[in-house]
């Protein structure tokens, strides 16, 4: 894959470049400020971009804003946002356009390199990848938390992994269950919650996230 890395701290930018290169991917460009990031995103249209939220010149959410702006120009441009902290607020803003190709992770998620690169590939393919911390918060404090009481422990586990953006197959692998068993959980879960199932993995994830985010 052709990858863009936008990160203002040299140490991290360098480490990230070496990590993805160790996995055989190609870094086509790096950026270290908000405007540079927006410029590079639109010029290179990389297969996937890793963008830090906080960047100069203002040291505020420059990276996030560059990502959102780039996706307004080029809908569905795959971007994975990395940050020192994850917030529901930012997750919602990223998912708002419903186009997929979005990831939002804590920086330490790179420690599990295989899973990180896996998520990166998922985002590049137009999928969604959310940090477990975001999903856990969404399940416990989100607007839909009371409606989730009907679910069994296992169904909640499956729902969480699905919201992170995993396919049935990947969820099965994570929980040591067969894909068809996961399919059964999904059907019963969607029945209870009243979510319409969808053929496409990605649209299903977006439906789940929309459900979790919707009040009432």
């Amino acid at each position, binding site marked *: 894959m052709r990858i863009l890395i936008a990160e203002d701290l040299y140490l991290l930018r360098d480490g990230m470049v070496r990590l993805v290169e160790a996995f055989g991917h190609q870094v086509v460009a790096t950026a270290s400020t908000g405007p540079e990031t927006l410029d590079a995103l639109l010029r290179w249209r990389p297969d996937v971009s890793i963008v830090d939220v906080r960047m100069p010149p203002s040291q505020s959410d420059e990276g996030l804003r560059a990502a959102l702006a780039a996706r307004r120009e080029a809908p569905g441009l795959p971007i994975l946002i990395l940050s020192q902290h994850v917030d529901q607020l930012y997750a919602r803003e990223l998912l708002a356009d419903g186009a997929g190709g979005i990831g939002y992770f804590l920086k330490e998620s790179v*420690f599990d390199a295989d899973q990180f690169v896996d998520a990166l590939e998922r985002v590049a393919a137009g999928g969604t990848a959310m940090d477990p911390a975001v999903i856990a918060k969404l399940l416990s404090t989100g607007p839909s938390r009371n409606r989730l009481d009907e679910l069994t422990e296992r169904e909640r586990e499956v729902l969480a992994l699905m919201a992170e953006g995993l396919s049935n197959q990947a969820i099965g692998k994570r929980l040591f269950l067969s894909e068809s068993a996961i399919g059964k959980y999904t059907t019963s879960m969607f029945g209870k919650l009243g979510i319409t199932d969808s053929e496409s993995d990605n649209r299903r994830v977006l439906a789940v996230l929309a459900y979790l985010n919707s009040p009432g």
Partner: protein
Amino acid sequence: MRPVVSWVREACAGSARAGAVAALGLPVPILWAGIAAGIWFLGNPWAWTAPIVLTLVATLLTSRGLCAMFRKLVAQWTGTVIPGGHWEARPVTRMSTGYWWNGYSYSRSNKEAAEDQRLRILWHDPATWRDLRFVPIAALAGLVAAVPFAGFVTAVVGFGVVSPLLGVAGLVVAVGSAPYAWRATPPLTVRFLRPSRAMLLAGRVDELTAQRADTTVAQAAEIRRIERDLHDGAQARLVSLGLALATAEKLMETNPEAAKALMREARAGAASSLTEIRDLVRGINPPVLTERGLVDAVRALALDTPLDVTVSADALPRLDAPIESAVYFGVAELLTNAVKHARAHEARVSIVLDGAVLVVEVEDDGRGGADPGPGGGLDGLRRRLAVFDGSLEVTSPEGGPTRARMAVPCGS
């Protein structure tokens, strides 16, 4: 001969002062007395309406200036400075609607708003009424001050027309009272013109409000600095450590040499993130300060500063932690300035407990020219000390040396 000369001199000076007091204090009351006499002897009070109104206006208009003159004279004669304590005009701002807001009401034009504000402040300010109340007091002071002149006039009349005996009596009164007649004025002025308790408290409230705002701003800035340091420093280093380890794990099979190099880097990274956290902790609250108190913390600071720093200090009891911290960071800032801005080679720090006031002086041999202006580092330090009613004085002529003196009351 000499006592006589000094008596004459004192009498002359006293007469001049008494003359000034009488000339200031008497005119307006004389007008009022004239009106009263007119009504008493000629009757028909209504005929006096116009003079009464005019005199009232004159009284109102002159009272503030009269009080200012009395304050000035007293300050000149006795050195006692009595603050006026009048309210200051507040800024008039233009609202988005185009009207001008002066703190009380809206007006169409800037000028109208300012005039309206001036009148309202005049009316609401307790100092205005205190000044007005002082008019009869000034008359009293004026009457006392007029005694020598009355004696002199009596003497002239006595010698010329009535009898020499009256003349002699008048002369004795005039000469005897001349050096003393003005002396009633300063105590009267101080007693009746000093700011009331309520005004002093209002001033103190303003001061404390400003200090609280300063503290809040300083605190928020400090918290932002710490968050920033952690975010860009220790947190980032730990992430990079994890990154290196993850990459090394991946490379272990394919390129063991590169993996080993990454591990070495990771170890160095762990060490430097520890250093960074240690520095950050020291910037929040130096461990030596907690463990050993101000004097030893300043000694430790002196050792870490790239200057020859001599520290002389009294044995101090442990002070309140916030005061210790403020003074410690004050010294740190002054020493940093000495290195960075003044390019000094040597510095002296002295820490003395003067009664209940902690006095810390920092002196360097640098090139001076420190700017204590608003917004600068020294101004920030002054504000941080002001929170504890402390003060900072800096003398830093161009070419040096710079002397800074921090004084903080510490109630021990």
